C-alpha cells in the first residue's frame, strides 16, 4: 500500500452558499455549503476545497468565519481559496481550522506571498492554485479571473517558481476543460506533475468515473477535483472510488462510522 489517490469535491462559495460555475460564468445556487460539505464527508470525500469566487475586501471577515464554521463540523482536511492576498489573512483562515490556503492571482502579482505563507505556516499549508490555458503548440499560459486576464507567464515555469518558494501542493485547473465535461487535461497534468515533486491536484473537465481512472492511469496526478458533477449528483464520490478500486488504483475505502 501507499498513499491513496484523493477525490476532492470543490465547492465554489459565495456568502456561504455553493454556486456552480461553467467556465466561470453563470452561477446557480445549489445549497448551503456546510450542509453539502458534511454530506461529502459522509460520502467518502478525501478532502474538500472551498473557493470563494467573489471575495472582496468586505468579504474577508466572512471567509474567516466561514472557515471556522466548516472546521466545527468537518473532520477531514479542507483548503480555502479565493481572494487570499496576504499572509495575515492566510494565517487567520488557518488558525480557525482550515488546513491549507490556496493562492492564485495575488501570488502572480506578488510571488512573495507564497514565500511568506510557506515561511510562516509551512509548505503543507501553502497551495498554489493555477489556471492554465493552452497557447498554440507552445505550452500553457497562466491566466487569471477564470481566463479573462492573460499573464503571458508559462505555467510550467510559474509552478516551478512557486514550489521553489515553498508551495507544498499544486491545484491545477485547465481553463480549456473547465465546465466542458471532456475529461481532465492529461497533457497539462502530466507536464506539471513531472515538473515538480509536490503533489498535484488536477481540476477541470471531469464528467465520469472513467475520467478519474484515466487521470490516475495516464498522469502523475495525486488527486482529482470536480465540482458540478458531484453537486448535481451526476457522479458520486463512492462511485468514482469503486471504479478506481476496480481499475487497481489505491483509494481510501469507506470508513467505519464513529458512533
Amino acid at each position: 500500500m501507499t498513499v491513496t489517490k484523493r477525490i476532492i469535491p470543490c465547492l465554489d462559495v459565495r456568502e456561504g452558499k455553493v454556486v456552480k460555475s461553467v467556465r466561470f460564468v453563470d452561477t446557480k445556487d445549489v445549497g448551503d455549503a456546510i450542509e453539502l460539505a458534511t454530506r461529502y464527508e459522509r460520502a467518502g470525500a478525501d478532502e474538500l476545497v472551498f473557493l470563494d469566487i467573489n471575495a472582496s475586501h468586505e468579504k474577508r471577515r466572512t471567509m474567516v468565519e466561514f472557515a471556522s464554521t466548516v472546521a466545527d463540523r468537518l473532520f477531514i482536511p479542507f483548503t480555502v481559496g479565493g481572494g487570499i492576498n496576504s499572509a495575515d489573512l492566510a494565517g487567520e483562515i488557518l488558525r480557525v481550522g482550515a488546513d491549507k490556503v490556496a493562492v492564485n492571482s495575488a501570488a502572480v502579482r506578488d510571488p512573495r506571498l507564497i514565500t511568506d505563507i510557506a515561511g510562516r505556516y509551512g509548505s503543507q499549508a501553502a497551495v498554489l492554485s493555477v489556471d492554465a490555458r493552452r497557447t498554440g503548440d507552445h505550452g500553457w499560459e497562466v491566466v487569471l479571473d477564470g481566463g479573462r486576464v492573460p499573464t503571458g507567464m508559462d505555467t510550467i515555469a510559474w509552478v516551478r517558481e512557486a514550489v521553489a518558494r515553498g508551495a507544498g501542493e499544486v491545484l491545477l485547473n485547465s481553463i480549456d476543460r473547465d465546465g466542458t465535461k471532456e475529461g481532465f487535461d492529461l497533457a497539462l497534468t502530466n507536464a506539471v506533475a513531472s515538473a515538480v515533486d509536490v503533489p498535484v491536484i488536477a481540476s477541470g473537465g471531469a464528467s465520469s468515473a472513467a475520467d478519474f481512472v484515466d487521470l490516475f492511469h495516464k498522469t502523475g496526478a495525486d488527486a482529482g477535483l470536480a465540482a458540478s458533477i458531484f453537486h448535481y449528483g451526476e457522479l458520486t464520490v463512492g462511485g468514482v472510488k469503486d471504479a478506481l478500486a476496480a481499475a487497481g488504483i489505491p483509494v481510501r475505502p469507506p470508513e467505519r462510522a464513529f458512533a
Partner: protein
Amino acid sequence: MREPSIAIVDYGVGNLASVRKAFVAVGARAELVRDPAALRDATAIVLPGVGNFGYCSREFHRYGFSPALRRARERDVPILGICVGMQLLFEGSEEDHGEPGLGFLAGKVVKMENVPRLPQIGWNALGPAGAHPWLRGVRDGDHFYFVHSYVPEPASPREVLGTVEYGGTRCAIAGGENLLGVQFHPEKSGANGLRLLSAFVGATMRQTVPS
C-alpha cells in the same frame, strides 16, 4: 476540584483550533493552554504542531513549555503528540540540527528518501497497530490523513506502535506508557481519527476522574 480537562499545548503554532474542535466533537473538555504553569492541573496533554520542526521547537521552548512537559512526563501525565508534536517527543530532527526535541522517545526525525512525492499528503493505511490502550479502536488497514516530509526513526523497535508504507516502511505511531505520538492528523482523519481521540479521552479521563 477542577473538572478534568485535556490541555492542548498552545505555543502559537499549527492547527490548534482543529485539534480542540475534534476533542469537542468526541465530547471531551479541551482547552488551549498558553501558560506552561497551567499544565500542572492538566489531566492529559496534547502536543500539536505542523510545519517546520525547527520553528516549532524554537517556539515551544520560547514559550517555556519544555520544563513543564518534562515535569508532566515525570508525573506520568498522559501525553499525545500529533505530527510535529510527535516529532518533538524525539531527540531531534534532521530538519534543524540545532534544535533539540524533548527526548521522551529515543531516536531522531529524518527526511523521507526515495518517495514518490514530498511532502506525503493524503490518506494512507496503517499496518497492524501495537498494543497500547489508546489504540484499542484502531484496526489493521485503517486509513489516516498524513501531511509530512520528515518522519521519526525510533531507536527502539518496541516503541514503534504503527507503520505506514510510503517509499518504504515508515513509523506512523510511537510511544510507551502514558505516551503516544502519531505522525498523521487524527483531528482530520474522519471517523478513524475521532475514534482514536475518543479512546485517548476515555483511557486518560477514567484514570483521574475519581480523585
